[in-house]
């Protein structure tokens, strides 16, 4: 398996009592709850963790983009990636991702990724996402056109990387007389594109198409859903007439390892529960604005949520039981990961070893134990 060390960079000093006076830790959470001195310390800790993961032999180190939120302090992930390029030498650096529909000029994304690819001499992996629903409140971009803008921006960026410029681009949302990407990407024909997603049949069908074969990563979902979506991708690939390789399949999950199950559960509890209940939890109107997903998917989602009943705090135990997070002794974690790997044929695991309010000290121990007790056993 290929292992990625992924970071969200949550703002841990958040006053949780204050946070719950607001709809969410996103968009409407007053930014006077952010203390720049504490924030600067957070950045330093997190970047140190990302750099350290290379020394621990992770294949990929990864960052991502979210806006106006304490959930993740990386509205501009490329800035972190640039810093990581300077401080590392062999690990791939993944930006998972940039949210394409949120920008009015996707050529900027093509240019910035191309720059990073040159600076790193081809160590960049790109992620193309739509951003979660909250991002459409934060940016004002109309979620009804999210899918359209994503497709168009994708086509524009890939063409900017691969087609001799200058050339014109004529779309519905994006129109440019001159597309001429200076610099061109270092990797040829272009840096890898990964598709992190909560899973939708439309996205799977698109990502698996033979002309793309983009690696598909199911993010933060219960193990049954991870298995279902990854197998859907494999099925789709078969229908296209090929066998999906392990490289095309992966999932992302918070992971915590300690010497015993009991200790792992105890140490991970606060981190897991704050991640899902305090940082991520978002009202329906914000998380899924109309048009963000298709009408039929939205109908299903609403019915499912209705069946689940009123929203309440999730416990670490139930998130462990359903496999949304992987927590336990090295043996438990190895078994859990290899079971899902064997059930799906997945070859990529994107681990989040710092999550919620998990401290620097526990994060470091978690990283070291995962790297020494889990990773070597699951390598090919």
């Amino acid at each position: 398996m290929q292992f990625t060390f992924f970071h969200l960079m949550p703002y841990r000093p958040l006053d949780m009592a204050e946070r719950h006076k607001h709809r969410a830790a996103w968009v409407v959470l007053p930014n006077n709850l952010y203390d720049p001195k504490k924030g600067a310390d957070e950045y330093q800790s997190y970047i140190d963790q990302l750099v350290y993961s290379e020394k621990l032999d992770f294949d990929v180190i990864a960052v991502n983009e979210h806006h106006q939120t304490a959930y993740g302090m990386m509205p501009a992930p490329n800035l972190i990636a640039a810093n990581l390029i300077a401080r590392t030498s062999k690990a791939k650096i993944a930006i998972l991702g940039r949210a394409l529909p949120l920008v009015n000029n996707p050529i900027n994304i093509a240019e910035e990724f191309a720059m990073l690819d040159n600076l790193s001499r081809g160590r960049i992996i790109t992620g193309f996402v739509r951003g979660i629903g909250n991002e459409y409140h934060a940016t004002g971009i109309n979620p009804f056109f999210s899918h359209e803008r994503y497709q168009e921006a994708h086509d524009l960026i890939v063409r900017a990387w691969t087609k001799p410029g200058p050339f014109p681009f004529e779309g519905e949302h994006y129109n440019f007389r001159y597309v001429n990407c200076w610099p061109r990407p270092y990797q040829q024909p272009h840096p890898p594109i990964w598709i992190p997603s909560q899973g939708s049949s439309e996205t799977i069908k698109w990502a698996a198409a033979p002309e793309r074969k983009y690696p598909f990563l199911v993010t933060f979902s219960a193990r049954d859903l991870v298995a279902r979506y990854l197998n859907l991708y494999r099925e789709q690939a078969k229908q296209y007439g090929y066998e999906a390789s392990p490289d095309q399949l992966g999932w992302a999950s918070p992971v915590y390892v300690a010497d015993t199950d009991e200790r792992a559960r105890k140490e991970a509890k606060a981190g897991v529960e704050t991640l899902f209940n305090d940082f991520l939890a978002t009202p329906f109107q914000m998380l899924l604005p109309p048009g963000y997903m298709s009408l039929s998917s939205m109908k299903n989602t609403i019915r499912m949520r209705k069946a689940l009943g009123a929203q309440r705090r999730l416990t670490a135990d139930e998130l462990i039981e359903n496999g949304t997070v992987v927590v336990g002794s090295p043996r438990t974690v190895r078994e859990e990961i290899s079971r899902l790997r064997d059930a799906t044929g997945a070859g990529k695991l994107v681990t989040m070893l710092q999550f919620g309010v998990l401290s620097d000290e526990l994060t470091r121990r978690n990283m070291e134990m995962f790297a020494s007790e889990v990773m070597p056993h699951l390598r090919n």
Partner: protein
Amino acid sequence: MPGTETRHKVRDVSVRMLRGGSGPPVVFLHGANGLPQWLPFFELLAATCDLRIPEHPGYGTSDNPPWVRNVGDLAMYYLDFLDGLGSDKVHLIGQSLGGWTAAEVAVRNCARIASLTLLAPAGIRVKGELCGDNFIWDAEESVRNLYYDQKIADQMLAMPVSDEQADIMLGNRFTTTKLGWEPRWYNPSLERWLHRITVPTLVIWGENDKLFPVSYARRWGELVPNCRVEIVPQCGHVPAIEKPDLTAKKILELIGRS
């Protein structure tokens, strides 16, 4: 007597339409929540008018043509619609999103319009006077924030919603998002062209509107040449539901049927 339900076709687009009463032709353009039931307010108009209430393309069971991408497209559709009614002129009324649409129709061409009534219309923006964010409100807030009298909201919230109605409401939300999300509830060009509205115009606004503040009413009054502004006390965003008698009376006065 409740109106009758018909289908109405303009070019290749078929929409659902309620119709009732006889007299001078009146067309009512509904707001973002979609085609309401036959309201007491409609009954008051239908007593002396020939009232038509089309369900916008993209709402309810009307067709959803992909070329309706903004309110300007919807306005062009309604210019075709008015041309095809067989009447010389109609009295045009619009609520909120429908008011915005009616104003977009009128700045393009008033030839088919006898009078214009705008009930708390969207469509313009008054800097410094932020409209309510009904895309972030939850389901209950979205009802409560429309009414001054919370007893009306209580009744609406107590009404059972079938799966079929829930699906229609969700589809309506999709179209509303397409039309109103960005820029939020207005067209930056519209206010530059409101001087082109040459017909007698009535703007009615609830004093306690939480979606579009009542200060917007004064701005409409300044921009539309032949315009009277009525502010309704103790009333939220939907005067036609909250104050049907007063709203109908003012409209019938404008139409000359009082």
